[in-house]
C-alpha cells in the first residue's frame, strides 16, 4: 500500500482493504447481536445482583444517615475521653429528629449490635425527652449523662463513632468469627462461640472427601466403560445416566430409606452377621450419611468427563507400553494414567465445586453435622433476615470457588470440560 497506484480497488472503486474491514465489522456486529440478548439478560438479572450482594455486604449507611450531625462533630474527637458538649448536643439534635420520625428504635437495635446495652439507654433517653425533662438552655452533656450511667461511659461513645463510616467489613469478620473490638482492632470471638469456622472447615472437609471418594469409585468404572465393546458399555452407561437424570430429592429420599436404622442396609448387615439386630449402627443424621449420599449423587459428574477423555485414548498405547517390557501396572501408571489427567481435573473440579455449594442433601441426611456454609446462608436469608451477612458469606464462598477454578485453569485448562 505504499503508493496509490498499487492499491487494489473493488468494482465500486473503494479500496479492497477498506471494503474488507467494513465487511468484517459487519460480521462482528452481527455475531455480537446474536449474543447480546442473553448477555444483557444475564448482566441485568444475575451479574449485577451479585455485585449488589457486595455493596449490601459492606453497607453500613443506616446509622451514618441517622446521626449526620453527631458524626460531623465527632470528626475532631480523639475518642479517648468523653466527647465534648458539642458532640452531645449534636447527638441530642439528631436523636430528636429520629424521635419525630419514630425511628429511634431502629437506632437502638442497630447500636445494640455494636455494643450491648444501647437498646435500654436509648429507650431511657426517649422517655426523658417525652416527659420534657431535658432543658435545652442548660448543658445537654450534663443532662444526658444523668439519664443513665452508660451515657457516662466512654466505650459507648466509641461504639457510636465506630458506626460512622458508611462501609464496614464487620460482616466478613463475623463470617470468620472475628469482630471489631472497642478500640477498633480486630479480635477473635471466644473459643466456644466460633461456629462459622467450624462450618467452613466442615464444608471444605466434606467437599474434599466427597471428591476423593468420587474419584476412587469413578475412575475404575469410567475405565471399564471406555474399554468395553460398545454394546456392553452402552448398557452399563445407563447405570451412570439414570441417576444423573433423576431428581436430586428422589435420590436423597432413597438414601433416607436405605440408611435408616430399620433400613435395608442395616437389614443386610444383620443378615450377614456384621452387627446384631439390637445393635444397629446409626448411619443417617451423621457424616456417614452425608458422605454416602453425596458420593452417589455426584459420582456421574466424575464419570462422564473421565469417560469422554478415556474414550479418546487409543488402546494400542497400552499394548505398546507392555510390548516394550512394562508390566501392566507400569504401562498403566506411565502411559495411561498421565493421559487421563485432563479428565481427572475436569471431574474433580466439577464434583468439588458442586459439593462445596451443597445444601439439600446434607440438610436432610446429615442431621446436626449436615449443617454446612450453604445452610447457614439460607438460614440468614430466610430466618434471621440478616441479608447483608448472608451476602458476605455467599461472596466469601464464591471467592473460594473462583480461586479453585482459577487454579484449575492454570493447571489443566477450562476448555477440557465436556458434558457427557
Amino acid at each position, binding site marked *: 500500500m505504499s503508493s496509490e497506484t498499487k492499491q487494489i480497488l473493488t468494482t465500486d472503486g473503494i479500496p479492497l482493504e477498506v471494503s474488507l474491514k467494513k465487511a468484517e465489522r459487519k*460480521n*462482528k456486529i*452481527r*455475531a*455480537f447481536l*446474536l*449474543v447480546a440478548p*442473553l*448477555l444483557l*439478560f*444475564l448482566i441485568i*438479572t*444475575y*451479574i449485577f*445482583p*451479585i455485585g*449488589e*450482594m457486595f455493596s449490601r455486604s459492606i453497607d453500613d449507611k443506616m446509622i451514618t444517615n441517622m446521626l449526620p450531625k453527631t458524626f460531623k462533630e465527632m470528626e475532631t474527637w480523639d475518642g479517648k475521653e468523653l466527647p465534648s458538649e458539642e458532640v452531645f448536643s449534636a447527638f441530642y439534635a439528631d436523636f430528636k429528629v429520629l424521635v419525630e420520625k419514630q425511628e429511634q428504635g431502629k437506632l437502638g437495635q442497630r447500636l445494640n449490635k455494636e455494643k450491648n446495652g444501647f437498646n435500654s439507654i436509648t429507650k431511657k433517653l426517649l422517655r426523658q425527652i417525652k416527659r420534657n425533662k431535658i432543658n435545652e438552655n442548660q448543658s445537654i452533656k450534663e443532662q444526658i449523662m444523668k439519664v443513665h450511667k452508660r451515657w457516662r461511659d466512654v466505650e459507648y461513645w466509641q461504639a457510636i463513632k465506630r458506626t460512622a463510616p458508611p462501609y464496614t467489613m464487620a460482616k466478613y469478620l463475623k463470617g470468620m468469627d472475628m469482630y471489631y473490638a472497642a478500640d477498633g482492632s480486630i479480635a477473635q470471638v471466644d473459643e466456644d462461640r466460633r461456629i462459622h469456622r467450624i462450618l467452613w472447615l466442615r464444608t471444605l472437609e466434606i467437599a474434599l472427601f466427597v471428591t476423593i471418594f468420587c474419584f476412587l*469409585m*469413578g475412575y*475404575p*468404572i469410567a475405565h*471399564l466403560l471406555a*474399554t*468395553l465393546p460398545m454394546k456392553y458399555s452402552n448398557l452399563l452407561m*445407563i*447405570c451412570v*445416566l*439414570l*441417576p444423573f*437424570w*433423576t*431428581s*436430586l*430429592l*428422589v435420590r436423597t*429420599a*432413597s438414601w433416607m*430409606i*436405605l440408611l435408616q436404622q*430399620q433400613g*435395608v442396609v442395616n437389614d443386610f448387615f444383620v443378615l450377614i452377621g456384621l452387627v446384631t439386630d439390637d445393635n444397629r449402627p446409626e448411619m443417617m443424621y451423621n457424616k456417614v450419611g452425608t458422605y454416602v449420599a453425596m458420593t*452417589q449423587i455426584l*459420582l456421574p459428574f466424575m464419570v462422564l468427563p473421565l469417560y469422554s477423555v478415556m474414550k479418546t485414548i487409543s488402546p494400542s498405547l497400552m499394548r505398546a507400553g507392555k510390548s516394550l517390557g512394562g508390566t*501392566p501396572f507400569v504401562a498403566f501408571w506411565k502411559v495411561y494414567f498421565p493421559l487421563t489427567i485432563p479428565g481427572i481435573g475436569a471431574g474433580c473440579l466439577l464434583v468439588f465445586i*458442586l459439593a462445596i*455449594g451443597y*445444601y*439439600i442433601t446434607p*440438610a*436432610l441426611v446429615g442431621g446436626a453435622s449436615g449443617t454446612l456454609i450453604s445452610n447457614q*446462608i*439460607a438460614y440468614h*436469608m*430466610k430466618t434471621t433476615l440478616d441479608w447483608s451477612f*448472608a*451476602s458476605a458469606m455467599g461472596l466469601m*464462598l464464591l471467592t473460594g*470457588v473462583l480461586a479453585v477454578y482459577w487454579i484449575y485453569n492454570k493447571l489443566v485448562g477450562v476448555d477440557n470440560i465436556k*458434558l457427557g
Partner: protein
Amino acid sequence: MALPSYTETRYRIWHYVYLAICTFVFFFLIAPLFVIFPLSFNAEEFLVFSEGMKNLDPDAFSLRWYHDMVYGTKNPWGLAAKNSFIIAIFATIGSIILGTLAALGLSSRHMPYKGIIMATLISPMIVPLIISGVAIFFFMAKVGLAATHTGIVLAHIILGTPFVVITVTATLSGFDHSVTRAASSLGSNPVNTFMKITLPLILPGVISGGLFAFVTSFDEVVVVLFLAGLENTTIPVQMWTGLREQLSPTILAVATCLIILSTLILISAELLRRRSERLRGINR
C-alpha cells in the same frame, strides 16, 4: 474384556478384583433408585419392608399412596405438578431461544472477546446455587417478581441457558459452514438459511440442551425456596418439605413417577445423541 491366555496369575486375580470393584460401584449407583419402587406399593404407613412384603403376600401391597397422591385431601401434589410443568416448559423455551442465539454468535469466528463472554454466559453453572439463589432473589424482590411464576421462570432461564449454550456450541463445532454459504449463494436470506439449513442440522444439540434446561428447572429447589410463595410451590419444594417434616409413603409414589419421567428423558437424550453422531458422521 477377555484376558489373553498368557496373563500371569496375579494380573488375572487383579483383573477379577477390578471387575468386582466395578460391579460394586455400578450397583451403588443404580440400586438406590430401585428401593423406591416396591416401598411405594406398601400397604402400611411405614417406610420399611413389612414382613408381608418380604413374603410377597399380595395383601401387603396396595396402590393407596398413589390414590392419596392424586385424590388425597388437602394434598399439594396436583398444584405442585402443574406449577413444575408450567415453569419448566417456559424456562426451557426461554433457555433454548436465548441459548441457541448466543451459541450461534459465539461460534462465529468474527465474535470479539469470545473468552470473557463465554465465561459470563456459563457462570450460572459454576457459581454455587445458593449464591445464585441469593443474587436472583435480590433482583426479583427489587423488581417485584418474587413469589410469581414469571420470577421463577426467569430464574430458571438463568440457570438453564449455560447448558444450551454448551451443547449447541459443541454441535456447531462440527458444523460444516459451507452449506450455509451454499444456501446464501443460491439466494436465501439469513433467516431462511437458519430455519431451513442450520436449525435442522443442529437440532439434536438444541434439543439435548433443552432437555438439560428442562431437568435443571424441574429439579431445582434451592432458588425456588427463596422465590416461591405458597401458590408457586413445585414438586421439589413439596418433596423437600415432605422429607423434612414426615417421610410419608406418598412421597415415594411421587418419586416413582419422577423416576419413570427421568427414564423417559434418558431414553430421548440417548436417542438424540446417537442421531447427532450419525448426522455428524454424514457431514464429514
